[in-house]
C-alpha cells in the first residue's frame, strides 16, 4: 500500500458522511432511496470536495466514483443559482466521446429525477462538445454556455485557443478528468495537462481539479499529473471480488471453431455476455461465427469496435444496456468506464497482455457496488495459459503496471505555444513558467522551449529550423503572437494528438434512412441522395485491394462492394448472404507489459526448480499460487517437462540461446526476461552489428520473452567461439549509440517523424484548399524526413521522433539495463534440431511484421537478383 508524501495525503473515509446531512433533505432522501448508504469512496470524496481541495478518486469500476465527484458539484450549482442565466462552472473531460455521451445520459437521468425535488429553473444545464458536435451546437455553446460541459482533451484545446476563451471560462470552478490512468500515460495526457494549466491561469487559480481513475499505480504519480504540487487522494478498498476462470482451448482442429464451441454454452447460459478480443478482426470473425451458430439469437449478438460508425456503436451500447442483446463482442472500445448495465459474464479471448486491461475488462461485469465480477479467460497455447495465470494472479494481488507519463512531448508543446499565442500576446518567460507547472513538462529545459519557439519562427532562442521554414509566430514589442488570423484558423483545424490512419468509409444502401447530410463527400452525397447509412471504416490498404462484387465482413454482416470511390475514400456496399473475407486493421496488438514479462520469466525459473523436485511439486505450485484447474495444470506440467527434455528452462544465472542449423541457414533464439519492445531494441542492435562487423545480413523475429536472428548460411557446429561471437552482438559497450545508428534511417523513425510532424503542425492534417497531392499520404516519411534530416538534423520535431522511437517503439532503457546485466552472466548455447517448446510457444505469440532491415532500394536489388536467378534456373511459374 502506498504511503503519503508531502502534499499528497490519503484520505481516511469517515464512517458516516456528514456532508450528506448538510445537503437539502430531499436530495439526501433521494440518494438513500436510490443507493442506500454512500460507498467508501463517496464518503471519502464528500469529506474533502466541498473544501475545494484537488482530489484524485481511485476505486475499482462500479464503486460509484462518478456520483462521488458530481453530487457535490451539482448540489453546489443548484444552491448558487441566482437567476436563470447559466455560466460554465464545470468541465468534464474524458478520453472517449462515448464516455462523454454515457456520463451525460447518467447525469440527465439524475436531473430528470430531481425535477420533483427542485424548481426546474435551478437544475444545471448540460452540453456535450466533441468532434461529432454540429456547427450549430458549437455556436450555441458560445451564445449560451451550459453549467456543465462534457468534452474531450482536443475540444478543450480548441476552446482555449479562441480569443473569447477568457469570457467562456471566467466562472469555471471544477474540472473533472475521467480515466486519469488512461490519459496520463499518453500524449493526449500531456495535451490536457497543458490545457489544465492554461485554464488555471485564466481563472487565476480558482479551479478545483478532480480526477477519476479505476486503477493507477503509483497513485501519487497520477495525482501529481492531475494537480501538480498537492492533491488529496481517496482510494477505496471495496474491490469488486474477481471470480476468474482460466480455460485452455482445445489445440487440435480449427482454432476459431474450438473457440465458438467453448463460447456457445456460455452465451446460452447467461443473460448478458461481453466478449473481449485483442483485435477488431477477431471480434468480427467471432460475431459472424456466433451468429451462424445461434440462428435463434442472431439479432441479439452484436459487435462493437472502434472502426464501426459512432452511431452504430451507440445503438449497440443502448441495446445492451436495455437487455436487448445477449452477447456483445468487442475489441478495446468497451474497456473504459462506459456503463454497460448488467453483464453476467466477461470472456477474454486470449490474455490481455497487462494487468490494468484485465481488471478493466473483468470489471465490466458486476458493475456496481457489492456485485461479483465474473470472468473467463480463454487461452490457445501453453504460453498464453501461463501468461493468463500470471496476469490473473497479479490482478488478484492488485499489482498493476506503474503509470508512465511521457516526458515533455515537444510536438504537443508547439501546439500549445501557438494556441496561447492565438488567444493573446504572450511573453516567453511567463509562458515557460506556465508550461513548467504542468507535470509532464516539469523537467522541460529552457533550451527545448526556445527551440520550439525558433521552429515556430521566433527570432529569439535557438536557430535549428528558423532559416528554412515559414514562421507561425511573430514578435511584438511586449512579447509575441500568432502570425496572422489565417494561421490561427489553420491551428484550430489541426489541434489534437490523435492521428487517424488512412481509411475508407463504408456506406450501405439503406432506403429507410435519411443521412445524406451526414455524408461529408459532396460527390457521393449527390449520388446517394437520402439512401446511405455509414457502417464503419476499413483500412485503405485493405480497401484498395477490393473490387466491385467482392464480399467482406463488417459489423458482423456480409457486405458486397457495389461501387468504389477512391478519391473520396469511400465504399458503397449492400448486405447480402454469403461468405465474406475478413478485413485486417493496422495498429492492432500490443506487447506484454514489462512487469508481466519479468514475472513470467521468474515463474518459469520457479517452475524449473519445482520440477526438479518432481512434477507433483510443480502441479501443487500452479494449483496453490495460481488457482489453475487440473486440466490447465496438467497441460503446463507437460509443457515444462517437454522443454526440459528438448533443451532446458532458461534460468537467472545465464542467458540461453538455442541454435538450429538447417538448409536455409541458422536460427539463433535468445531467451530474455524482456517484453517485445525490449527485445526489439536488442534485435535491432544485433542485426546492425552483424551487418557492420561480420558483413552478414539477417532477419529478426521479435517476441515477448525472446528474439530470434535468422541468418542465411551456417555456423560451425558447436564451435566454442560461437558464444563469444553472439555475446559480441549484445555487448554493452556503445549499445545506445548502436541502437541510434540502427534506427537512424529506419522506416520506423520515418513513420514516427511523419506523425510528430503532423502533431507539431509542420504537416497539416486539414490544410486549406484542395487536398489532392502528388506526394501521397506518406510524403512526410518519404521525403520531408530526408529534407529536415539534411537541413536541420537537430530540429525539435526530429528530436522528439527519435525520443519516442527509443521509448515507445522499442524499450531502449530496459534493453540497455539487460545488456549491462549480461556482461556478468554466461551465454549458454544449445544446438538443437528442432525449436524447443518455449521457442514454438513464443514464436506463436510473435505478432506483427518481422523487422525491416533494408531500405526499399536494397530490397529492390535483392528482388531483382532473386527473380533473375530463378529465371535462369527455369523454375518460374
Amino acid at each position, binding site marked *: 500500500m502506498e504511503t503519503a508524501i508531502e502534499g499528497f495525503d490519503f484520505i481516511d473515509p469517515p464512517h458516516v458522511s456528514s456532508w450528506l446531512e448538510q445537503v437539502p433533505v430531499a436530495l439526501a432522501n433521494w440518494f438513500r432511496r436510490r443507493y442506500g448508504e454512500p460507498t467508501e469512496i463517496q464518503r471519502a470524496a464528500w469529506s474533502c470536495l466541498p473544501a475545494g481541495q484537488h482530489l484524485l478518486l481511485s476505486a475499482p469500476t462500479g464503486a460509484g466514483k462518478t456520483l462521488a465527484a458530481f453530487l457535490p458539484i451539482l448540489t453546489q450549482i443548484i444552491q448558487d443559482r441566482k437567476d436563470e442565466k447559466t455560466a460554465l462552472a464545470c468541465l468534464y473531460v474524458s478520453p472517449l466521446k462515448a464516455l462523454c455521451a454515457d456520463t451525460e445520459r447518467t447525469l440527465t437521468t439524475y436531473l430528470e429525477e430531481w425535477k420533483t425535488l427542485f424548481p426546474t429553473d435551478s437544475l444545471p444545464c448540460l452540453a456535450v462538445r466533441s468532434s461529432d458536435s454540429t456547427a450549430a451546437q458549437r455556436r450555441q455553446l458560445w451564445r449560451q454556455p451550459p453549467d456543465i460541459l462534457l468534452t474531450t482533451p482536443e475540444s478543450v484545446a480548441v476552446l482555449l485557443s479562441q480569443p473569447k476563451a477568457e469570457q467562456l471560462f471566467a466562472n469555471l470552478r471544477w474540472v473533472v478528468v475521467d480515466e486519469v490512468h488512461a490519459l496520463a500515460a499518453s500524449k493526449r495526457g500531456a495535451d490536457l495537462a497543458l490545457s489544465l494549466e492554461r485554464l488555471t491561469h485564466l481563472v487565476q487559480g480558482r479551479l478545483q481539479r478532480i480526477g477519476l481513475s479505476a486503477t493507477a499505480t503509483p497513485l501519487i504519480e497520477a495525482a501529481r499529473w492531475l494537480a501538480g504540487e498537492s492533491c488529496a487522494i481517496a482510494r477505496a478498498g471495496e474491490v469488486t471480488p474477481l471470480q476468474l476462470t482460466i480455460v485452455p482451448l482445445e489445440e487440435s482442429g480449427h482454432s476459431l471453431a474450438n473457440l465458438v464451441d467453448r463460447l456457445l454454452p456460455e452465451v446460452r447460459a447467461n443473460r448478458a455476455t461481453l466478449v473481449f478480443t485483442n483485435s477488431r478482426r477477431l471480434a468480427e470473425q467471432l460475431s459472424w461465427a456466433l451468429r451462424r451458430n445461434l440462428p435463434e439469437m442472431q439479432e441479439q449478438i452484436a459487435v462493437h469496435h472502434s472502426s464501426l460508425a459512432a452511431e452504430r456503436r451507440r445503438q449497440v451500447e443502448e441495446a445492451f444496456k436495455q437487455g436487448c442483446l445477449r452477447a456483445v463482442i468487442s475489441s478495446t472500445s468497451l474497456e473504459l468506464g462506459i456503463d454497460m448495465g448488467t453483464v453476467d459474464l466477461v470472456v477474454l479471448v486470449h490474455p490481455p497482455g497487462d494487468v490494468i486491461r484485465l481488471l478493466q475488462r473483468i470489471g465490466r461485469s458486476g458493475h456496481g457496488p457489492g456485485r461479483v465480477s465474473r470472468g473467463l479467460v480463454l487461452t490457445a497455447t501453453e504460453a498464453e495459459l501461463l501468461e493468463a495465470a500470471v496476469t490473473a494472479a497479479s490482478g488478484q494481488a492488485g499489482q498493476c503496471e506503474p503509470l508512465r507519463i511521457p516526458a515533455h512531448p515537444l510536438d504537443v508543446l508547439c501546439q500549445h505555444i501557438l494556441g496561447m499565442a492565438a488567444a493573446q500576446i504572450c511573453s516567453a518567460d511567463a509562458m515557460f513558467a506556465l508550461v513548467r507547472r504542468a507535470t509532464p513538462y516539469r523537467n522541460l529545459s529552457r533550451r527545448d522551449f526556445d527551440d520550439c519557439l525558433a521552429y515556430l519562427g521566433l527570432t529569439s532562442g535557438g536557430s535549428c529550423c528558423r532559416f528554412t*521554414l515559414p514562421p507561425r509566430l511573430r514578435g511584438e514589442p511586449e512579447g509575441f503572437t500568432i502570425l496572422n488570423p489565417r494561421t490561427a484558423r489553420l491551428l484550430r483545424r489541426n489541434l489534437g494528438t490523435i492521428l487517424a490512419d488512412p481509411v475508407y468509409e463504408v456506406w450501405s444502401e439503406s432506403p429507410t434512412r435519411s443521412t445524406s447530410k451526414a455524408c461529408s463527400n459532396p460527390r457521393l452525397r449527390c449520388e446517394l441522395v437520402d439512401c446511405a447509412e455509414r457502417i464503419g471504416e476499413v483500412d485503405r490498404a485493405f480497401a484498395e485491394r477490393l473490387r466491385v462484387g467482392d464480399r467482406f465482413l463488417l459489423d458482423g454482416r456480409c457486405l458486397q462492394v457495389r461501387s468504389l470511390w477512391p478519391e473520396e475514400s469511400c465504399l458503397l456496399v449492400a448486405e447480402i448472404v454469403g461468405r465474406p473475407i475478413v478485413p485486417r486493421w493496422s495498429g492492432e496488438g500490443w506487447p506484454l507489459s514489462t512487469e508481466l514479462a519479468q514475472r513470467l520469466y521468474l515463474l518459469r525459473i520457479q517452475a524449473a526448480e519445482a520440477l526438479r523436485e518432481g512434477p507433483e511439486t510443480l502441479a501443487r505450485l500452479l494449483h496453490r499460487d495460481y488457482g489453475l484447474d487440473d486440466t490447465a495444470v496438467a497441460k503446463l506440467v507437460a509443457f515444462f517437462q517437454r522443454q526440459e527434455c528438448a533443451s532446458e528452462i532458461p534460468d537467472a544465472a545465464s542467458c540461453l540461446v538455442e541454435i538450429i542449423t538447417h538448409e536455409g541457414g541458422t536460427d539463433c533464439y535468445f531467451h530474455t526476461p524482456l517484453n517485445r519492445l525490449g527485445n526489439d531494441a536488442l534485435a535491432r542492435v544485433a542485426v546492425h552489428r552483424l551487418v557492420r562487423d561480420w558483413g552478414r545480413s539477417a*532477419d529478426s523475429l521479435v517476441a515477448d520473452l525472446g528474439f530470434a536472428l535468422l541468418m542465411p548460411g551456417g555456423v560451425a557446429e558447436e564451435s566454442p567461439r560461437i558464444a563469444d561471437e553472439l555475446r559480441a552482438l549484445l555487448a554493452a559497450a556503445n549499445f545506445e549509440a548502436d541502437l541510434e545508428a540502427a534506427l537512424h534511417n529506419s522506416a520506423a523513425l520515418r513513420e514516427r517523424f511523419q506523425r510528430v510532424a503532423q502533431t507539431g503542425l509542420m504537416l497539416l492534417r486539414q490544410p486549406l*484548399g484542395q487536398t489532392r497531392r502528388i*506526394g501521397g*499520404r506518406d510524403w512526410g516519411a518519404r521525403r520531408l524526413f530526408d529534407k529536415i534530416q539534411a537541413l536541420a538534423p537537430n530540429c525539435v520535431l526530429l528530436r522528439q521522433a527519435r525520443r519516442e522511437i527509443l521509448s515507445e517503439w522499442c524499450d531502449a532503457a530496459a534493453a540497455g539495463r539487460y545488456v549491462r546485466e549480461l556482461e556478468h552472466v554466461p551465454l549458454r548455447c544449445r544446438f538443437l534440431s528442432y525449436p524447443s517448446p518455449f521457442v514454438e510457444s513464443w514464436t506463436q505469440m*510473435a505478432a506483427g511484421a518481422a523487422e525491416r*532491415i*533494408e531500405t*526499399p532500394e536494397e530490397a529492390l536489388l535483392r528482388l531483382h537478383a*532473386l527473380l533473375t536467378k530463378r529465371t535462369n534456373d527455369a523454375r518460374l511459374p
Partner: protein
Amino acid sequence: MHVFHDWLLTPQRVAVHLPTRTAVVADLHLGYAEARRRRGDAVPRESVTQLLEPLRRVERQYMTRQLVIAGDLLEDNDCCEALAEFLEWLHQSEMDRITVVPGNHDRGLEASPLARSCLPLCPQGIDVGEWRIVHGEGSLPEAPVVHGHFHPCLRWSPKRRANRPRFSRGRFAPDTIDGPCYLSGPGRLILPAFSKEAAGVNILPVRRWRALHCHVVVGNHVLDLGAVSALRRKLNVLNHGLYG
C-alpha cells in the same frame, strides 16, 4: 538500359532518344514545396537548380542537344517563383532546343505572358524521330508514343502473417519495395515522374498495364523486371513462401 533500339532509360528518370540526342522528361512538378506552403504546411523549399541537377548530369553525360518536357512542369498555376527560377535555369542551359508540352498541372502556363514569351509551348505534343511525345492525359495519339502523367512505380510488401511458421522458406524474401519505373510496350513508353516528390501509381493492380514491361529505377541502375503480368505472378509466389 536500352529499349526499342533507339531509347536509353537513365536512372535520373530521363529517357534519351539516341538518334536525335533528345532528352525527354515528364512530371517535374516544380514548386511542389511552395504549393504545400501556400496550403499551410511549414516545409522547406528547394531551389530549381538543385532539383534539376540530375537533368544537367544527363545533358553532360549523353551530350543531348534537345530537351522535351512532357507535361506537368509546374505543380500548379501559382508557382511563379519556381517558373522564374526555371526560366533562369533555361537561360544558362546549353541545349539547342527546349520544348514544353503542357500537362494537366500547367493550365496556367499558356495563359501566362511570361511563360508564353519565354517557353516554346506545344500543347499538341511534338515528334522526336518516329515517336510522338505527349503528356498522356486523356486519349493518346496513335503509336508510337512517349508520355508521362501517371507516375508509374512498383510498390509491394510481402504479406505478413501474425504467426509466422517457424521454417517459413519465404523469410528471406525482400522487404517492402518502392521505386519509380518506366513501362514499355509495343509502340509505347511511359516515363516515371522526374519529381522525387511524387508518390506514384502502383503498376501492379492496374489491369491495362499488365502487358507492358517494367524497368525499375534503383539508385544508379535501371533494372528490367520483365512483363508486369509475370512480375505479379512471381511476387505472389514470393508471398506464399516458395522462394528460399
